Every structure is written in structure tokens, then in C-alpha cells.
């Protein structure tokens, strides 16, 4: 303690100078907006780089967990693939490729909604590729730039997509009625289909844009108008379009061949 006091008495000038200069420096950075923002910018960039290193380091330690997750996902995919193979040995989904991407902008409040993603022609994305998530169909690409692409959302009154009743395999057209962003209408399902509330609707895979068997939603309501033979069905979507983040762009490698063949008949 005595040494400490001696030290202070000996260096009192320097200590006072340091205290005063630090007060003035703190004044400079706290009261001047420009200096404050500059020092903020510097400390933020320093903090970000430290965080990045930290994340990289911890990611390495988390590899065991990630591996376990991948094993589970792999076994799940393998099982599903085998089921599909047993079910129909001719049509397989091998001609579809999936490109993961992120949603940059999305809207649900207009009658014609569009969606923008962060992949473009550099990533092999072309017009008429489909956009899906694991919980449903999202839309169709309509414009592509180098690094970005826009798509017509299925919440667009001009778009109709092919959908199938999972239980009976009756197919119809799914379109949006602009009223509610979670409800779509399914038409052209004949009276003979024995439907009930809660039945699952999946994608039909007849358009060469989307593969078959992507879940879309469940029947929430239906009615049979007297004068027609077709149901009017309301479908509640699985995917919440209000919180769309990660999507897959799905490419059909044989779409050109498929469309050429189709055009021969028309």
C-alpha cells in the first residue's frame, strides 16, 4: 500500500495528465456525432471480424452434431426414395435438380404477388424453373438477371398450377382468389372423387415445372354447386408465405425435350 501511495505521489503529474486527456478524448467521442460514428464503425468492424472467427471455430466443434443431423436426413431421404421407386418404376425424379436459394423480397398483399431470390443466370437459373420449399410449391421463375431472379408467386391471380388429390389421384387446377394468403381454390375435381375435409393436396407433376408429390396443403372446405359436376374446394396451404426465407429452385433437365414432344401433338 505504501509503495502504491509512493508511486502515485511520484507520478502525480503523469496521472493527472492521463486523467485529463482521457476526459477530453471521451468528450470528443461522446459529444461529437462524426467522431462517435467513426469510432462506432471501427469497433463494429473489429467486433464483426472477431465474431466471424468465433463462428468458424465453433462451427468446427459442432461438426459432430451436424453430422448426426445429416445421417438422420439421409436415412429419411433414402426411405422416401425407395417408396417412390416401388410405387412407380418408370417415372423417377432424377431429372430434377434443386438449387438452394434465399428469398430477398416477397409480397402477399397484392392480387399479383412476385418473389425475388438471390440466385440468377450465373447459377444456371432459367425462366420457367419452379420455386418450392419442403412444405409446398412457391412459384415459377419469370425473369432472370445475372445474380437475381424474380418469380410469379402462386399467390398471383394469373397463375394456375396442376395439383392432385393424394388419396384418389384426381387432378385439378389450383389458383388464388386474393382473399386470404393461406387459402387457395382447387377446381376441376369431379363429383366422383370421394373427398373429405383434411385430405392432402400434392403437386401433379404434369407441367414439367414441378416434380410430383410436393405437398401443397389440406382441404379446409368444399361444396358441390347443384348445376355442375365439379367440386369447389378450398385448400389451406402448408407453407406460410408471410415468413418465406429459404427456397429451392427446381430445374427439369428434360423440360425442352418434354415440351418439344408436347408441341408435336398440338
Amino acid at each position, binding site marked *: 500500500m505504501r509503495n502504491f501511495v509512493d508511486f502515485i505521489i511520484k507520478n502525480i503529474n503523469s496521472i*493527472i*495528465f492521463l486523467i*485529463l*486527456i482521457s476526459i*477530453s478524448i471521451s*468528450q*470528443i*467521442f461522446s459529444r461529437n456525432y462524426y467522431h462517435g460514428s467513426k469510432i462506432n464503425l471501427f469497433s463494429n468492424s473489429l467486433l464483426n471480424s472477431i465474431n466471424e472467427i468465433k463462428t468458424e471455430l465453433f462451427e468446427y466443434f459442432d461438426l459432430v452434431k451436424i453430422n448426426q443431423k445429416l445421417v438422420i436426413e439421409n436415412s429419411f431421404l433414402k426411405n422416401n426414395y425407395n417408396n417412390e421407386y416401388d410405387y412407380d418404376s418408370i417415372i423417377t425424379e432424377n431429372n430434377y435438380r434443386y438449387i438452394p436459394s434465399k428469398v430477398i423480397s416477397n409480397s402477399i398483399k397484392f392480387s399479383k404477388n412476385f418473389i425475388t431470390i438471390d440466385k440468377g443466370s450465373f447459377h444456371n437459373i432459367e425462366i420457367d424453373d419452379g420455386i418450392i420449399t419442403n412444405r409446398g410449391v412457391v412459384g415459377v421463375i419469370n425473369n432472370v438477371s445475372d445474380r437475381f431472379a424474380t418469380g410469379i408467386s402462386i399467390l398471383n391471380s394469373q397463375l394456375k398450377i396442376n395439383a392432385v388429390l393424394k388419396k384418389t389421384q384426381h387432378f385439378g387446377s389450383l389458383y388464388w382468389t386474393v382473399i386470404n394468403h393461406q387459402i387457395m381454390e382447387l377446381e376441376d375435381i369431379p363429383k366422383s372423387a370421394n373427398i373429405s375435409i383434411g385430405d392432402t393436396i400434392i403437386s401433379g407433376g404434369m407441367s414439367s415445372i414441378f416434380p410430383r408429390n410436393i405437398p401443397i396443403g389440406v382441404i379446409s372446405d368444399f361444396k358441390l354447386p347443384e348445376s355442375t359436376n365439379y367440386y369447389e374446394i378450398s385448400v389451406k396451404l402448408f407453407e406460410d408465405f408471410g415468413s418465406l426465407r429459404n427456397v429451392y429452385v427446381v430445374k427439369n433437365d428434360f423440360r425442352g425435350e418434354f415440351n418439344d414432344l408436347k408441341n408435336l401433338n398440338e
Partner: protein
Amino acid sequence: MNSINQLLFFRFIILSISQFIIFNNFLIFGNTVNIYLIFIIVFPLNFNKSLAYIITFIYGFVIDFFSNSFGIITFSLLISILIKPYILKFAFGNFDVNKVRKTSEYISGTSLYQQISYLILMFFIHQLILNSVEIFSLQNFDVIFNKTLISSIISIIFSYFLLLIFFRKNA
């Protein structure tokens, strides 16, 4: 209150008031004339260091307050008073500093060149620190240098005449 303390008190009041009433209000080539540094230039030699730092801090704080440059002038004045003894030594060579005395008593016998070089060094270093802290960006070093040069020259001319008129005997 002895004569040196009285002198310090009056200089404090007069220099700070004249700085923010008169010299802060006219710009020459976009630069203000910083005569407040005279307070440091003629600060008594061999004064108690801690007290000198505290007086300088309060002086800088007052001028900062009226110039809307929070902390910048205080910072550069503190650095100036810290390096003042070294500049004195550089400009005038070694001399006996055993007593608290006015600067004029020490530099009365020195040549004009020595006095001018002392003024130039003090002002240039002070303005360089001031402008560097104010602009706070290495990319704009040319701006800092230009501003430092112009404001130093203007301030030196004004301060030299003020020193000649008011501080010749009492510095």
C-alpha cells in the same frame, strides 16, 4: 494571490473572452484565428505541472464550450502544454529553470529568430493536432495539412502582434 497567479487569472479571462467574442467570429480563408494558444505560449515556466495541466484543461473546456468543438481544443491544448518544455529547449537551448518565472524573463535576451521559431513550432504542432483530431481521417491528410498551414500562418501573424502590443513586458 501573488502576481503570477493574478497574471494567469487575467490572461485566462481576457484571452478566452476575446477568442470567442472577437476571433471566433471572423474567418480568413475559411479558418478561424486561434489566439487562445498565447495562454500556453506565455504560461509561466517551472510552474507546478499538475496545476498547469488542470488550468489548461479548464481553459480548453471553456473555449471548447463556446466554439462547439467538444473536447477537441482541450485535447490539443493538453498535448501542447506537455510538449512546450521540449520546444522551448529546441528553440532557445538549455537555460536555468529553477524558479517559477514569467516566460519573458527567460526569453528577453534571445534573438528574434529564436522567438519566431518558438511561435511557429508551437502553433504548427498545435494546429496539426487540432485539425487531425477534427477531420479524423487519414485519407484527407492533404486537407489536414493545408488547413494546418493556413491557420498557423494567420494565427502566428495575429498572435505576434498581440504579443508585441500586450505581452512585451509581462510575458
